[in-house]
């Protein structure tokens, strides 16, 4: 990989579900070290963009590359952090058990985890500030702690690119603040791309913003203006508004 190779690149990508187009002509390139937020109304295709980057979906046209390779081949270098809300709250695992799942593909294929894997998992938990919670029942953790545990799980896989899906959904404002500080710290060694429906909140801390609407546009954060948001959401919104909710159609904010 040369210095010029983007970590994540879309070249004229189209994607649709059963004939309904979701993304059209998406071209973007994320350089190493970036901290990017993907924003847009509900149903605009933000999560689709993430799934294309992971290779869980294939574009109907165009090409997605991660570290210059097909996403399927680059998965080991990606740390994926899904939303925790879809996970079974009764599931019998400790926080450490969950983080160890991030070692799959790195640790032994058969039998129990080795000491080396356990140490890597504990280091990852410490990095997200949960060193003392390793043996706690995952279900007993707060929403913010669960989210951090899932970040630790992705860190345990030693990623170079971290993809997060709506990481702040359902978090209290003060928890969210600490969460952004954690991402900033991780960004010193990782490229980070996160999906958010909360444009105003992220604008203050990310380096660039990808707006997903009918077209996909990449902006440096400083260029986020009322006009950009109006183009995206189809209404005149103010950046500082934190509590907006968009309709399913995504145009009447």
């Amino acid at each position, binding site marked *: 990989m040369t210095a010029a190779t983007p970590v994540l690149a879309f070249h004229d990508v189209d994607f649709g579900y059963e004939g309904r187009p979701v993304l059209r002509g998406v071209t973007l390139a994320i350089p190493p070290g970036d901290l990017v937020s993907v924003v847009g109304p509900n149903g605009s295709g933000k999560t689709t963009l993430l799934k294309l980057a992971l290779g869980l979906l294939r574009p109907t046209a165009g090409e997605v590359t991660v570290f210059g390779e097909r996403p399927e081949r680059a998965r*080991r270098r990606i740390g994926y952090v*899904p939303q925790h809300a879809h996970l079974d709250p009764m599931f*019998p695992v400790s926080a450490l058990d969950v983080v160890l*799942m991030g070692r*799959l593909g790195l640790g032994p294929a058969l039998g129990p985890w080795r000491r080396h894997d356990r140490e890597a998992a504990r280091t990852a938990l410490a990095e997200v500030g949960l060193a003392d919670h390793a043996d706690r029942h995952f279900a007993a953790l707060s929403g913010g702690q669960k989210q951090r545990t899932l970040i630790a799980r992705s860190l345990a896989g030693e990623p170079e690119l971290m993809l997060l899906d709506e990481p702040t959904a359902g978090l209290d404002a003060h928890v969210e603040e600490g969460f952004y500080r954690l991402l900033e710290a991780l960004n010193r060694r990782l490229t980070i791309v996160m999906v958010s429906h909360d444009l105003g909140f992220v604008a203050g801390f990310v380096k660039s913003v990808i707006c997903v609407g009918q077209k996909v546009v990449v902006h440096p954060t400083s260029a986020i203006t009322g006009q950009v948001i109006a183009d995206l959401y189809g209404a005149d919104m103010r950046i500082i508004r934190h509590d907006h909710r968009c309709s399913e159609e995504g145009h009447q904010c």
Partner: protein
Amino acid sequence: MLTPALAIVAALPAVPAFLGPLATHAFLQYALLGGLLVAVPCGVVGSYVVIRRISYIAGAISHSVLAGLGLVQYLRVVHGMTWLSPLGGAAASALLSALVIGWVSLRLRQREDTVIGAVWAVGMAAGIVLISLTPGYAADLMSYLFGNILMLTPRDLWLIGALGVAVVAVVTLFHKQLLAVCFDDEFASLRGVRTARYHFLLLGLTALTVVVLVSVVGIIMVIALLTLPAATANHLTRRLSHMMIVAALLCAGLTAAGLALSYGPDLPAGAVTILLTGVLYFATALFRKR
């Protein structure tokens, strides 16, 4: 719920009536040992069934077993193919159902429940028709449906024991992958785990466990013995390995208790076992709520 609970308490004096014959009757010893041996696959596989939420798949597999049992019985009696074993027929139909449901749940996710229902009912229907075509074997239908732990043979015990060893070996080798697939299969597949393979592995283990449990509690009640001890253990533990051990101990205790309580008053052992299992499950669920 209260009446069966009282009935069980009322049956407690029946236990001594069981201990005397246990010392002298080999069939009772086989039954007791069978209940203890079956607890190993029951606790381990049952825990996976509960955490992966495939109880209904296990239910469909267990009911489809009747087709295999009926076919073997029919071929033995009508066509003289006495070398066929009912257990083999049961295993074949269970594995076939597991394959069909597994394939459908991977390919056509939104129609999974319809297919589960179809396998469930069609399996039973085929079994009932085959048994009615077989002269003189209607009595077997009852023992298939409701189980008869008193009919276990030493050969059955060896098979149950072998399945337990195989289940423990497989789970020890693939624990990491199975746990990750049950918890978050999308993430597991992103980490390079072949999730479809483990999906089928779990369904295959479920099918074989169902077959041995049928001999203890019968087709209709298998789903309860497979899932309720594990669900009870889920209330009491916080890690999967502990859940499996507690589920296996509960399963062993419940089948032994079912056998002991039913013997004196001459009640069906399978049904008494399931009543005990249900009482314990609802009791822990209520206790947990408070």
